């Protein structure tokens, strides 16, 4: 069963914080389809500077697609995605690359370069984008590695890292050019509780210490609620709710509450639509 559209069942739906001078990312009227299936149907949202914003929603709702639009890897059919006041889709390739140097992104599978060791993985964007001398690159890389607690792992290859360590290395790589905006795609998936706690702490610490703006796409509602300043729930191509974590947890909407509490049944039913159970068991139909 599909999620209800905004306005139909969700009581706390509101136009979220969009188009203010304080927003680093502004998305308005975003439409996008993949293989004929609508992913976004008039999405509007804004991301405040200096905040950690959690973007949540059911699987397949387009959260990762949204991150790819913010980084300019995908272009919207209509509507605008603005980062730091620049319309991403309208930028030339050089201007887009200039903008991307102000962003960092942590991929779900870390996306470390498998033929480079940890040190070279983090040095990679610095070597490719700057002409800094090796001594300074070494200093920068070791500083970032130390900030994620992996200075001692500089010589390891990606295949020798645990999932949590790989995520932290990817985080150090995403931060190495001191971006303004850091995007996290499912940063907690597949992590043990200790690694998860470390990554959570690092997201908060980095955001506050470096004055970043962070967007975290995650299914882990309980975990992300601990550190997010603002939560946005997306479904059926639109924002269906937004607000602080506590505000969403206390939402009068069954749908939002089901999502926030992870209840198995509710507006999104446990059972996929099927014929009558008794009739099917008794052999009527297939």
């Amino acid at each position, binding site marked *: 069963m599909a999620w209800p559209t905004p306005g139909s069942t969700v009581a706390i739906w509101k136009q979220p914080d969009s188009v203010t001078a304080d927003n680093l990312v502004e998305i308005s009227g975003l439409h996008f389809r993949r293989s004929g299936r609508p992913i976004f149907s008039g999405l509007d949202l804004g991301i405040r500077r200096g905040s950690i914003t959690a973007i949540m929603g059911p699987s397949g709702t387009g959260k990762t697609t949204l991150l790819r639009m913010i*980084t300019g890897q995908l272009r919207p059919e209509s509507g605008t995605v603005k980062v730091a006041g620049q319309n991403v889709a309208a930028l030339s390739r050089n201007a887009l*690359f*200039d903008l991307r140097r102000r962003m960092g992104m942590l991929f779900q599978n870390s*996306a470390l*370069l498998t033929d480079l060791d940890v040190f070279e993985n983090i040095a990679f*964007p610095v070597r490719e984008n700057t002409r800094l001398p090796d001594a300074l690159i070494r200093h920068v890389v070791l500083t970032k590695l130390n900030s994620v607690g992996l200075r001692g792992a500089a010589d390891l290859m990606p295949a020798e890292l645990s999932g949590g360590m790989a995520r932290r290395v990817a985080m150090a790589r995403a931060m190495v050019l001191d971006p303004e905006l850091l995007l996290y795609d499912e940063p907690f998936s597949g992590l043990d509780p200790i690694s998860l706690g470390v990554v959570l702490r690092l997201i908060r610490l980095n955001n506050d210490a470096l004055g970043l703006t962070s967007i975290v796409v995650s299914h882990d509602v309980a975990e992300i609620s601990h550190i997010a300043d603002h939560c946005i729930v997306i479904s059926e191509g639109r924002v269906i709710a937004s607000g602080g974590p506590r505000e969403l947890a206390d939402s009068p909407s069954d749908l939002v509450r089901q999502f926030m509490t992870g209840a198995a049944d509710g507006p999104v039913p446990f059972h996929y639509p099927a014929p009558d159970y008794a009739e099917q068991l008794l052999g009527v139909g297939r």
Partner: protein
Amino acid sequence: MTLPLQLWGGLVDSLRKLGAVTLFLVAILRQCPAALARPRLISQQVHNSGVLSLVIIMMSAFFVGMVIGLQGYDSLARLRQEDVLGAVVALTLFKELGPVVTALLFAGRAGTALASEIGLMRATDQLAAMEVMAIDPIRRIIAPRFVGAVISVPLLTAVFNAVGILGAWFIGVQVMGVDNGAFWSQMQEFVDPEDIFEGVLKSFVFGVTAGLVAVYEGYNSPPTAEGVGMATTRTVVTTSILVLVLDYLITAYLL
């Protein structure tokens, strides 16, 4: 769907893919100067594609040379022209077998490695991560590998020709008893610079073809295990067919 419609659809798809490959080649060529400005990246790829293919190239060349030596000796002996064996072997290798077999072996050894490496980088988001880091994957990953292939294939062809001639010399002179002086002097007598040029031209064109197909298939492979496998298979099949077709076209043009 009727047969004419299917054929039309196939034609349109083929033209679309040809256009996409051409645009991809243009994008690579634009980044080649930047890639060539970093010789370490190029030499690394020449090592991966070329040096690591040397064993299979040399082994194959020696046996191909021995077969040409045997077959050539058998045919020429019927005409009592065994002395021109050296010239026949050299012309066969320089003009045809050297470039063609090297390109086919390159597609099987290095082309598949390139396609699967790039396909896996796509599947594990390494290429997407580069784009987000403001690093153009065409400049950093694709162009050096393409240039590496274009450099490697002619060099491997030269090695193939040299080892192939040694294989033919071993069979013809050492085993079958063709005169050593006649073997080499006839080769010098009958092989013209134009013959060498034809081989060099073919090996260069095949290097561009094998490199382009491998990086294109890898770069555009679906990000799944099956997708990478299919890209690898398509690399070998497409390169093999294109090499044989281009070989005919170049031969027909130059003769």
